[in-house]
């Protein structure tokens, strides 16, 4: 069987008439963790939104295959039920909707989709107990409304907790590290690392190299100008940390070509 989880080919996408992605290619296999880095506004969240099927993000060209299927044909809730999970950069507050209730509704919707029996609240509580501990999620947090009045760190931990419960095949973490202090970052990273598995792929979108010290990626990509401008192994992240993104603009083409043609990844990119 094909190990390819996600194949993005020549993806062009626009938001409100504005072209954001310009021929993006990306391939992620089961068992891999890929990091996507890039300056603010380069289109990282846009890519995540397109994959998750958010309304208003129009694909103007290209293809997205998920486990060999045309992903773009599916409704956003179908994509979720098929195993795509997005940890939001800005988790949304839903006043009056209990956090536990929300997550159980989500899990049961996905179980129903897969033809599995739904869980009652006792079974559900049993299922989440251990996962709550790993992410230091208090009972109080579970009794509150979804994300309402959560601190920045609580929101991010809650996202990873949801991921732990929903057990997706492909998880996209959009700047899950931003706004976290070092302890919270370690906690989140541990939560993520525990979920690494041969059947699961992850795309970690981040602005900083810091997170990648804790979640060590198999591949690192740099998004710039609406495409993957460079790809490499974990060392590429270090180079970015030292040199910033400005080298992309100047020696961009060379770096890009070096990275794309070189199968060795970081070495080629660094040497460009």
């Amino acid at each position: 069987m094909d190990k390819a989880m996600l194949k993005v080919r020549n993806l062009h996408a626009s938001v409100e008439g504005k072209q954001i992605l310009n021929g993006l290619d990306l391939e992620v296999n089961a068992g891999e963790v890929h990091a996507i880095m890039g300056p603010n506004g380069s289109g990282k969240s846009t890519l995540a939104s397109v994959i998750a099927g958010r309304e208003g993000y129009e694909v103007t060209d290209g293809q997205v295959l998920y486990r060999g299927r045309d992903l773009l044909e599916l409704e956003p809730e179908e994509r979720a039920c098929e195993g795509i999970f997005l940890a939001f950069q800005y988790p949304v507050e839903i006043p009056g909707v209990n956090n536990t209730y929300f997550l159980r509704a989500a899990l049961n919707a996905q179980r129903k989709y897969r033809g599995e029996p739904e869980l009652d609240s006792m079974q559900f509580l049993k299922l989440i107990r251990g996962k709550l501990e790993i992410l230091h999620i208090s009972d109080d947090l579970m009794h509150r409304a979804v994300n309402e009045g959560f601190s920045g760190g609580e929101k991010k931990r809650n996202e990873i907790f949801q991921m732990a419960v929903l057990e997706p095949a492909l998880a996209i973490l959009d700047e899950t590290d931003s706004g976290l202090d070092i302890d919270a970052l370690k906690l989140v990273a541990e939560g993520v690392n525990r979920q690494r598995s041969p059947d699961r792929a992850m795309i970690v979108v981040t602005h900083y190299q810091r997170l990648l010290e804790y979640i060590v990626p198999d591949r690192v990509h740099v998004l710039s100008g609406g495409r993957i401008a460079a790809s490499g192994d974990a060392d590429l992240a270090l180079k970015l940390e030292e040199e910033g993104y400005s080298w992309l603009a100047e020696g961009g083409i060379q770096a890009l070509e070096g990275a794309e043609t070189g199968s060795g990844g970081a070495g080629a990119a660094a040497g460009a």
Partner: protein
Amino acid sequence: MNSDQITVDTSSVDRFVQQKYKHGFVTDIESETVPPGLNEETVRWISARKGEPEWLTEWRLQAYRNWLTMQAPDWAHLKIEPIDFQAISYFSAPKSDKDRPQSLDEVDPKLLETYDKLGVPLHERARLAGVAVDAVFDSVSVGTTFREELKKAGVIFCSFSEAVRDYPELVRQHLGTVVPPRDNFFAALNSAVFSDGSFVYIPRGVRCPMELSTYFRINAAETGQFERTLIIAEDKSYVSYLEGCTAPMRDENQLHAAVVELVALEDAEIKYSTVQNWYPGDEEGKGGIYNFVTKRGMCRGDRSKISWTQVETGSAITWKYPSCVLRGERSVGEFYSVALTNNFQQADTGTKMIHIGRDTRSKIISKGISAGRGQNAYRGLVRVAKTAKNARNFTQCDSMLIGKRCGAHTFPYIEVGNPTAKVEHEATTSRIGEDQLFYCLQRGISEEDAVSMIVDGFCKQVFRELPMEFAVEAKALLEVSLEGAVG
């Protein structure tokens, strides 16, 4: 007992129409319905048909004469086609008392089926939940249960007609003291022609042993409904009253003008909950019930409390302001409301809190939801009289819009006549967040479930004031009412 008893027997109507008026007075009180039209004869006929005492007939006639001098209010944020009051039939009833079902078992199974469809298993509810049920349809009560148990506690819970017959002094003492017959156009109309309704009396020191519940339903064609409800809570008593309304699909607009009066004496508490789901009209805005209701509670005694909780999802037009007159010192008034308008529904609803006694407090929580082309207006008055030293009011008024063609409007009126009073008003309007919706979808929840979940969360503050099983029903109602609102 046959199931035809609730449909109008047209042959007898014809007979009635053809009959001559003798001495200017209609004598055929066995008739099931009066022909359309309203005049003093109609009023007398209704009163005679119900075997009412002279004073009540006079009271009705006085109200009718008042009504003639009044005009339908036009200040509400509503578009209303003029109503032809002469085209409405003002009374409709089963053939005779003997033919009426003596228990729920005798009620038309079709009616029970309708309740079931709406998630209101009436008989089950009555038996399992121990709720006393006084089901009213077509103006006359058909089933009252648990009366024995209530009697033991000294509680009176019966139809209004029975109360007039069996407790005339209580009725006479309180009727019209909270909503005077000339209070407003629709109240005057109701006072003239009211058909039936509920009567509740809780004696001093008694905590009513069960929730009292009435289900209303409009049934016969072209018959306006004019219920009259009176609840009296003596000193240190407590009662929780549930009113739910459902109606089958139908075409013509129907006028509904009820009056509800609540009287709370010293240290008494009345909790009045409504789930209203009358036919709202179709997707094009055709048909639907006109719901013009006057509901008011009087906190007459010190430290008394009245709270209104309403979930309004039905009707083509809703005009309704359940209010509290806080006369007793330290008395408390509360109003919790969810009003939903979809398609072409219009609602102008809110409350009035009239502070008269010192240290009186009131709280208003209003949640308006508009979808489709629905128009939703909150209209609230907080009036603090000169006498109401240290009066307090808190108002929170939130609107949610679903889609782009609907509207929400807020009209707060605040009149403060005492400088020690504190009145707070908070208002928000939000569109159902595309981001909230996407967050739910991304977790695998369907759009329809997501909308009802978000709306349910929005209404939580009100739902938690409802008795448990009512809250479940209210939630289901919102879901049904919002079907197709998004996407």
